[in-house]
């Protein structure tokens, strides 16, 4: 005697990106926390010391936020004009920032007043940074020069004027205190060595450079500018390794994740893209406004993004712990012993094992289908939870009912409430190519059955109106698509050489069927 075969829920793969480990990793961020600043946020820098506070430079202030606070724990407001490029020293105790008027200020994290002021630039200083020995500060300015300052004595050590346009990007080397990389609007990226006092390497980016970034090994250099992100191999003398064009507006910022050194780039097109080690985009974050600055905390604990509209959005990583607190709240089931009872018995060699018949567990709708209760089975399949989170189960039950020839019986004799449920389900899913065929059939049957009584219920009537509207729109869309397909066909036909007349329509159709097959 064969057992009851449960309804087969067809698993149809969704089109689109595949789920990989990386996408799972990057999806594992909570929804962003939004903090409003006074102006466009030009720079975010994380403190290298735990608890990894971060400095946000916006308008005439620099705010320092704690990892989970939404209020600044400290703010530096002694700027007469817009502040730029606030960045921490390697020990996290000092902060340096440039400003619109050309002054560079050095702050102690615990103090309020600037410890030092470096004056010398004639125009706005957009980027400042400590060199890795911590005693010198390097700055890039709109007066085309880069200057190096001594912190204890507050004097200018050297001035480098090799760039021919604004210097807007800077990255000091962490391994060598005499090396730093600058990027400028003159389309070049230069590597300076303080020992020689001049640039040792020059790379042509091809667009105004907005940001430069060194890999921790300092063998690779990333520069962004225009729509391009370029990666240079410094060990090969500045050879271009790869050029990425994934954004459709200027790429303003880039940073590296500390886990696996994945590259993240942010752009004015409001997207943050995450690349894997072979520079393929594996994930995409969407933001509300054009992105100016971005930083990621050590261990990827938080991703802070600054935007042109002055909104700072911080995404925190979701942790296993958070989930545990959720599950612990749930009712405790039977203990582990109950399930393994007698299952871990290992038979001895001569033992004759009598296997217990395996009980077949059926879903509720299967049980109802087994006893031919078709209306109830449809009701079960249309329960809110199934309907919303697993529409394929609902559709599978509908298909099964149709196969049994009892779909009409199951749909008949319903009241307003359950009919609304069905119609809402139709409205939501009738255009899904996976479900449209059975659902159109359901729509037909519903119309046939309830034609006479529709006008009695305004709710149902309204839903039907909407269904008709969306169906009309969909039909128009399909027609347009067919027209486009026709145009494409003629294009393909004219492209292929005369010899292969037979296989002309092959490439597009092949792709289409592959999608279906997949």
């Amino acid at each position, binding site marked *: *005697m*064969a*057992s*009851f*075969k*449960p*309804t*087969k829920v*067809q698993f*149809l793969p969704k089109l689109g990106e595949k789920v990989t480990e990386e996408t799972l990793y990057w999806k594992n961020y909570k929804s962003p926390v939004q903090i409003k600043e006074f102006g466009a946020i030009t720079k975010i820098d994380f403190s290298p010391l735990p608890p990894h506070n971060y400095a946000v430079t916006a308008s005439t202030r620099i705010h320092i936020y704690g990892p989970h606070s939404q209020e600044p724990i400290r703010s530096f407001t002694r700027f007469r004009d817009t502040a730029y490029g606030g960045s921490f020293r390697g020990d996290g105790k000092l902060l340096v920032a440039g400003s619109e008027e050309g002054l560079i200020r050095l702050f102690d994290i615990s103090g309020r007043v600037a410890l030092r002021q470096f004056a010398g630039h004639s125009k706005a200083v957009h980027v400042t940074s400590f060199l890795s020995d911590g005693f010198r500060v390097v700055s890039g300015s709109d007066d085309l020069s880069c200057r190096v300052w001594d912190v204890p004595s507050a004097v200018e050590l050297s001035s480098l004027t090799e760039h021919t346009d604004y210097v807007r990007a800077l990255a000091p080397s962490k391994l060598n205190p005499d090396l730093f990389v600058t990027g400028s609007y003159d389309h070049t990226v230069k590597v300076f060595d303080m020992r020689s006092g001049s640039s040792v390497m020059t790379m042509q980016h091809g667009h105004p450079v907005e940001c430069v970034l060194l890999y921790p090994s300092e063998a690779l250099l990333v520069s962004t500018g225009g729509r391009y992100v370029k990666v240079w191999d410094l060990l090969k003398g500045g050879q271009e390794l790869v050029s990425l064009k994934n954004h459709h507006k200027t790429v303003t910022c880039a940073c590296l994740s500390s886990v696996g050194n994945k590259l993240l780039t942010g752009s004015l097109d409001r997207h943050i893209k995450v690349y894997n080690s072979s520079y393929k985009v594996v994930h995409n974050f969407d933001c509300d406004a054009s992105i100016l600055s971005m930083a990621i905390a050590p261990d990827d604990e938080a991703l802070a993004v600054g935007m042109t509209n002055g909104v700072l959005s911080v995404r925190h990583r979701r942790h296993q712990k958070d989930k545990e607190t959720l599950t612990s709240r749930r009712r405790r089931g039977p203990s582990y012993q109950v399930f393994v009872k007698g299952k871990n018995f290992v038979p001895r060699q001569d033992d004759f094992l009598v296997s217990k018949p395996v009980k077949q567990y059926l879903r509720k709708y299967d049980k109802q*289908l*087994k006893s031919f209760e078709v209306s109830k089975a449809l009701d079960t399949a249309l329960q809110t939870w199934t309907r919303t989170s697993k529409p394929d189960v609902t559709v599978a039950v509908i298909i*099964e009912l149709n*196969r*049994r*020839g009892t779909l009409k019986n199951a749909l008949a004799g319903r009241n307003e409430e359950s009919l609304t449920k069905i119609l809402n389900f139709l409205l939501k899913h009738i255009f899904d190519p996976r479900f449209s*065929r059975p659902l159109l*059939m359901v729509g037909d049957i519903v119309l046939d059955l309830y034609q006479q009584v529709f006008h009695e219920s305004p709710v149902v009537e309204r839903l039907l109106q909407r269904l008709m509207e969306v169906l009309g729109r969909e039909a128009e869309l399909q027609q347009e698509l067919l027209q486009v397909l026709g145009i494409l066909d003629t294009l393909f036909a004219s492209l292929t050489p005369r010899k*292969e007349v*037979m*296989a002309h*329509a*092959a490439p597009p*159709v*092949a792709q289409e*069927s*592959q999608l*279906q*097959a*997949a």
Partner: protein
Amino acid sequence: MVEESDVRVVRFGGSKINLRPPIISTDSRFVLCTSGDSVKVYSTRTEEWLHSLQGHTNQVTGIALNPANHLQVYSCSADGTVKLWDFIDGILIKTFIIGYPLFAIYVSEKHEGIVFLHIAMDTDSKKEGFQLVAVHLPKSAEQEVEAKELSAVSSHISPNPSCTAFGREGQYIAFARNLQLNVYFFRKQKTYSFSLKATDKKGAKNAFTCIACHPTDDCIATGHEDGKIRLWRNFIHKKEYTYSTQHWHHNAVNTLCFTPEGTNLLSGGIESVLVQWQYGTGNRKEFLPRLGGSILHVSASSDGQLFCTSHSDNKITVIESSFKVCGVIQGLVKGDAVLTDLMIDPRSKALVLNGKPGHLQFYSLLRDKHLYNLDIVQQEYIYEAGLDQFEVVKAAFDIKGYWLATVEERGQKSADLEFFLKLWSYDERTQSFVLNTTITAAHTDRIISMCFSSSEETTMLVTIAEDGQFKAWCQGVDDQNFWSCDFVGSYHNLKPTNCSFSADSSLLAVSFQEVITIWSPDTWELLTTLCQPPGVIRDLCFGRLSCSKYLISTTTRNLLCCWNLLTCAFLMDSFSGLYTVFVFKPNEPRPLFTHKNVCSEKIHRAVFVPREEPLNNCDESSQWLNRSQLYFLTQNMDLLTFSTATEEDRMLSSSTRLVIDDSVAVTPFYLLLGKHRQQQQKLNTPSHQAADRPQQPQGSVTITELLHTPAHVLPPASVLCSMFVSSLLISNTGEEDSEGEMEACDSQQELRVQGSVDEVTPKLSKAQERELKRVRKTDFSWMAGLIASKP
């Protein structure tokens, strides 16, 4: 044209075993059922086929245990004879010649020496008029007796034999026809009839479908077309009869049966649910659902411990009285039509075709046994008349038997056609096929045909469909395990009709109406087109081995066309003939073999099956049968084959062996030695089947003697031992010989492919072989000396 008497058409795979109710023997050890022109005996415990009672020359239409002797069985046949058999030994005891085609047989304990038979009213049975006659069987010692004492009990009875039943202790006989129930009392010699209205207000259909009488009570149960069961009582009085109605079945009740004590009533119908009603308690019932095909007959053993149901899918189920299935006897499932071709599973060499609805059946031709059903559709089957079900319509194996592609379809009649293309991979661990990929919308219209590429390295599937396209499917595009589309092609929007890969799969031929297109599967380039003489192409096939340059096609105008692809030259032959089998060599326009009027029906499909071991037939005309066998399927779903004289001898010897095995009594010695012998056989069968055969009779005599004799009369074990051991020895010479033979056939076996059309290389004759062996055994050591001395 050669007409050969040596080659004979033989039925294969058994006939229907579900035509008439099966019988369980009194000791519950055997099940007997009718099967074509023989009666088959199965064991209830092992479900094995023991032997068949052969002797009738036409369809056996009824069997009944002899009430006087429970080891004997009566059988009646359409050839006009009733035969009495000893079914345990399979011996024909007597033949009674009636002279009219018989359609059913009934016996009763009370009427000793009398059988009741259905015969046609007029000599032509088309009129559907049947009568029930009582025949007095004359007692005489002769083998063949003419029984002429016919007395009609009733005329105008139903052609359905389950509409007639004997009542309590054979006092009356009840038979129903359409809307009338008749009861004939033997003592009164009177017939009472009770009739129902055709329909009542509720639209019930009251026609009788079956009848059963209570064994100890005056009660008749009748089944009706609308699924009702009526229990008639008090019918001894013509006017004051009563009946009660019970209703569970939603379609016609096919069969009814009381258990021997009369405590329960069993009923079955199209729903395939066996229902057990408790007699006398109204509505208490038990169910045994999902037994397989719809239930046609139910019978109970005389002690009430076993029930037997026979199903429409050619199956007999043995059920214990506790409502547990304890055995299934499955014949070749015969559906309505074989939509898939006849195929050979390259791995198990089993014949594969449609079986139960939604299944593929694997039938071993070598052992003549149903192996298993592969569930393709994987959905609960709803037994309901007129429901549009999923059917497996196409199936194809790849050359190694690792992949199976199937197409299932639903809604051929209505507008919305649903079909799935499924790909199954062979799982070594479970030894069966596992679903790998389901493709929901492979084409926009139904798939006409498909084939796998024949190369060993890469498997590719090509499907052609009515939407004018052919698609190539490949596995593992971007490292995935499932199949996806590789190429889509079409030719002037013509409808494709068939496709075939060449032997090395370097070419793909796709026929579009009257044009054959040849493609290269590597580059998907159209290489050439071949235009046929008028007529749409139906089938397409490449030659194999030495004939691989030939492409053979058949058209709707009875043309067989052959293309030589090296020169693109055209060879053609036209032929016609009803019910004829032609066998061709691809390089000769004349048929190699023709067999006219093979059978009385249309032949639908044919397939070549490689033999396990080749025959040594040197006859010119039947040489093509040496290495493969041709099986073909007729319209009525009969599987036929050609057999030669040598083969039949072999069949005969193997069947006698089986009988010996079973007749051994179960003594302690048997348990001990029988186990030993089975092991030995197991060792032997795969390699030295030939060696085992001549040895068997000699050895088995000693062994059976040993096993039959009670232990206390046996001589001491020391005496027996040497005798027994020597009987087990296999003589040296026989083994050597057969091994040489096996090697030869193994190498040839590999070259064999299903549906092959290669030419047959002439085999060495016996004399030549012996000569060869002699040369091999000669000592050539003197040559070594010669060679050494030379330089």
